[in-house]
């Protein structure tokens, strides 16, 4: 095992061979540093322009009329009365969609505005533009839609029954992933099994959906919007608007968090349709309530798992069935099924495997991407079952996981070689060895107890529990997707100072990608001042800000573009200096020779010219899996994390206080350690939220709690202090050795919390979020 250093903090990574230690000057803010984020000042002064802050002098406001029914036939829509409301400038229905009335991330199966049927509560039916949002809302209320309510499929466990109504033709199956590996008839001396249910989680980003569509003189539209992937939005908008890409220009507005909830379209086509119809800029901003209906959620899941093992706890086989409720439209359900199936048994060595993962259509809210993407649901099952196995064979939860933990050189359940670090055992050991929080004082402050100042206990009935979980997650897009990013980098002298400008379309959603882009430019070009160009579709696709992929893939593109710029500059310098290019480096705005001597200034080489290069970066290709066996190299990279949770549980009232939530994660290379740890903190909180409090309650197809009053996300009092340990086992296949960071913490934190509550109360707790009545058994 490779050793860990002490508490010396991250060292600056150097790509030896191009940057020896004799460098005359070293540009600060390179990779491995934690420079301040370039949008930080704007964000602390209130000057940062979120999508909801956008304003245009002559703009009008758009609102959406949505279906009140989970499933109905539209008999007719009468907009006459709405049009008479003073101030209304347009009322649009499906008939007004000029292109194909369909959109969707993977399949264009969702109408821009409903035609003939509505398939979920909240489906958009009509649009109104008016001079004030309240006017628009009142006018929308005067649109008369005649619905014939139809039987709805609301229990996904019966969605594939013969007598279930079809949400779509030909049926309600979105995807069935079948995976078979090894001996299917093998038996084992120890068998454990369980059923687990996972509730529907919301991304609950704090900045609700918003956008401003501005009609352009060329007949096209400029859309300023908060999103995760400008180019996939553009593709879908072009289809619906019937326009070529050059007329549908997207610009990233300030994004108030995303977490998967902005992968699908929200206001995009609607605002653009209204803008094109009225000839005026149109702003649309969702309220929090509408936001709950305006984006996909994390799939609720029903999981049935069985492990067979030797008496020493070594896994012999695993069998799993995973059912995901995709809701009314496909969104990214097929890919979520892909993850739940191919990664759904966790980071363990299991020779014999049978997995069936299903995604189904229902008339529930559409589900799609959320941080952790299919692995979150599965982890609650495989980690609960791992604890069952530990009990069955008399091992502790850490040892049983370490005994079965994946290692570099193993093949996972799809037969894919794990060809870089897989420190499962080490991560578990790190969290197990971290200091535990002190025992609770007998006279503890009420606020330290479950129930807090509700004064529900003074310590009686409160039991402490500790739980562990570990996970692995694919980084980047999988199963053969052509996953790439584009970057354009320009280097020039401005006012006597060298300035690099980096232009990508990769969405900054808060994670800090723009800081990373600057750090890479500084590292590769040796200039301090790096301008991040506004994100838009004037440059090639940056791919999605999802799958923990941007530092890897867009980072790779920025690096490649920088290297191309550097090559041009050094070639020029070599020609003028009469030296070999290989003898030259670029650092501190100087051309530096092999032994660190300054040969000439960048200013002399560049003169008045700007050097600009654009590059695409693709990670290693992935491949479709075999439809019968699920075998194949489906993923490009895996990231590992482990959590240990400590909870106090009032076992009489079912109340939980999380006392500690500690974690260790391998990030390959911490390009920006502050940002890395920030991602781990936030991701851990979201996983804890799903374990204990976060659920969109849907009954009979209706969302019952579309507000932050009733949908609870962790507060600062719910979230305990965290200890975070970061490993840097470089992935030799990735730029700088990076490994995606954002998602693993959300996957392993929740199961660790659930395990800790289980340990405290002694009940199986087979459903998350865990409710008080589950703990008390009442």
């Amino acid at each position: 095992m490779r050793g860990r250093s002490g508490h010396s903090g991250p060292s600056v990574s150097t790509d030896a061979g191009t940057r020896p230690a004799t460098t005359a000057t070293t540009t600060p803010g390179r990779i491995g540093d934690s420079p301040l984020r370039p949008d930080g000042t704007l964000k602390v002064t209130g000057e940062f322009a979120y999508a909801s802050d956008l304003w245009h002098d002559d703009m009008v406001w758009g609102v959406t009329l949505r279906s009140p029914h989970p499933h109905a036939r539209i008999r007719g829509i009468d907009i006459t009365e709405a049009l008479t409301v003073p101030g209304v400038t347009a009322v649009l229905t499906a008939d007004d969609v000029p292109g194909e009335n369909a959109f969707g991330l993977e399949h264009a199966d969702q109408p821009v505005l409903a035609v003939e049927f509505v398939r979920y509560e909240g489906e958009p039916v009509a649009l109104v533009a008016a001079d004030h949002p309240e006017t628009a809302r009142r006018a929308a209320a005067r649109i008369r839609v005649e619905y014939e309510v139809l039987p709805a499929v609301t229990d996904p466990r019966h969605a594939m029954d013969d007598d279930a109504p079809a949400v779509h033709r030909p049926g309600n199956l979105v995807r069935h992933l079948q995976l078979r590996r090894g001996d299917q008839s093998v038996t084992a001396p120890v068998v454990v099994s369980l059923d687990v249910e996972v509730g529907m989680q919301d991304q609950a980003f704090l900045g609700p959906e918003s956008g401003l569509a501005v009609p352009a003189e060329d007949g096209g539209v400029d859309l300023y919007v908060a999103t995760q992937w400008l180019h996939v939005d553009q593709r879908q908008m072009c289809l619906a608007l019937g326009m070529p890409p050059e007329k549908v220009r997207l610009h990233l507005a300030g994004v108030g968090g995303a977490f998967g909830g902005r992968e699908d379209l929200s206001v995009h086509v609607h605002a653009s349709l209204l803008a094109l119809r009225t000839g005026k800029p149109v702003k649309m901003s969702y309220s929090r309530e509408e936001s709950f209906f305006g984006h996909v959620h994390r799939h609720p899941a029903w999981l049935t798992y069985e492990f067979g093992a030797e008496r020493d706890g070594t896994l012999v086989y695993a069998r799993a069935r995973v059912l995901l409720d995709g809701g009314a439209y496909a969104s990214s359900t097929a890919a979520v099924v892909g993850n739940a199936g191919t990664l759904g048994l966790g980071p363990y060595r299991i020779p014999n495997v049978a997995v069936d993962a299903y995604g189904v259509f229902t008339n529930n809210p559409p589900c799609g991407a959320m941080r952790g993407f299919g692995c979150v649901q599965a982890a609650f099952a495989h980690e609960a079952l791992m604890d069952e196995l530990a009990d069955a064979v008399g091992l502790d939860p850490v040892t049983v996981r370490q005994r079965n933990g994946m290692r570099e050189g193993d093949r996972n359940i799809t037969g894919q070689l794990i060809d870089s670090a897989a420190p499962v055992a080490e991560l578990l050991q790190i969290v197990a060895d971290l200091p535990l929080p002190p025992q609770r004082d007998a006279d503890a402050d009420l606020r330290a107890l479950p129930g807090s100042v509700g004064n529900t206990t003074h310590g009686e009935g409160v039991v402490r529990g500790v739980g562990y979980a570990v996970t692995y997650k694919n980084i980047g897009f999988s199963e053969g997707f052509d996953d790439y990013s584009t970057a354009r980098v320009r280097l020039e002298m401005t006012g006597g100072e060298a300035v690099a400008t980096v232009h990508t379309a990769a969405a900054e959603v808060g994670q800090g990608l723009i800081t990373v882009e600057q750090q890479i430019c500084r590292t590769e070009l040796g200039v301090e001042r790096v301008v991040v160009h506004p994100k838009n579709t004037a440059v090639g696709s940056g791919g999605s800000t999802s799958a923990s992929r941007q530092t890897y893939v867009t980072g790779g593109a920025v690096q490649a573009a920088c290297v191309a710029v550097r090559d041009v500059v050094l070639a020029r310098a070599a020609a003028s200096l009469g030296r070999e290019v290989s003898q030259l480096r670029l650092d501190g705005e100087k051309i530096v020779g092999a032994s660190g001597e300054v040969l000439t200034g960048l200013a002399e080489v560049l003169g008045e010219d700007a050097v600009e290069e654009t590059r695409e970066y693709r990670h290693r290709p992935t491949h479709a899996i075999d439809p019968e066996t699920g075998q194949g190299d489906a993923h490009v990279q895996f990231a590992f994390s482990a959590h240990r949770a400590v909870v106090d549980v009032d076992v009489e009232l079912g109340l939980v206080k999380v006392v500690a939530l500690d974690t260790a994660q391998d990030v390959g290379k911490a390009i920006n350690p502050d940002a890395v740890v920030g991602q781990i903190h936030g991701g851990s909180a979201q996983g804890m939220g799903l374990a204990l409090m976060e659920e969109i309650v849907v009954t009979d197809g209706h969302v019952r709690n579309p507000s932050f009053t009733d949908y609870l996300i962790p507060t600062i009092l719910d979230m305990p202090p965290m200890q975070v340990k970061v490993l840097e086992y470089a992935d030799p296949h990735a730029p700088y050795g990076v490994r995606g960071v954002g998602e693993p913490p959300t996957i392993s934190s929740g199961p660790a919390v659930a395990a800790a509550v289980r340990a405290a109360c002694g009940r199986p707790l087979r459903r998350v979020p865990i409710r008080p009545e589950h703990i008390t058994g009442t």
Partner: protein
Amino acid sequence: MTQISVRVDGASYSDDVEPRTLLVHYLREQLGKVGTVVGCDTSNCGACTVHLDGEAVKSCTVFAVQADGSEVTTIEGISQNGTLHPMQKAFHEMHGLQCGFCTPGMIMASIDLVNDNPDPSEDEVREGIEGNLCRCTGYQNIVRAVQQAAGEMHGRAASGTSHESPAVVDTAAAPHVAVQS
């Protein structure tokens, strides 16, 4: 319509407002002060927190008419002559923000907290700003930022572990990686 007179971030305004107009909507839509944001509409998230006569309030729970005759300070009014308020500086430097949507409200709530309690413990920080939600940071660096700012606001040098770095990172030595291009 009712006429109100308020001072907002040091400037005086007299405006006609509907009695039902919320202070946050008055600030954003009539005064164009969009630095104060709306996150939830139901007084849960605290993103819209401003100071009303020096006290932190969620501006979605206050009618504009209730601010008549009062002094309102928003996130846009706390830096002076281009110098960030210590709380703004600390949130930036301690990585106390990611998407930043909660940040205006967090900063305004935290300033009020530190005005009341010049040297809050970690527990007191948590208790003091529990009405403000953040979805990105898990709150860890927000606590550190508030403590750092409290020290600066009250002339104390940073001391103790919680005042040091924005994130304690313990990294392992990793084998060197050749740079791909």
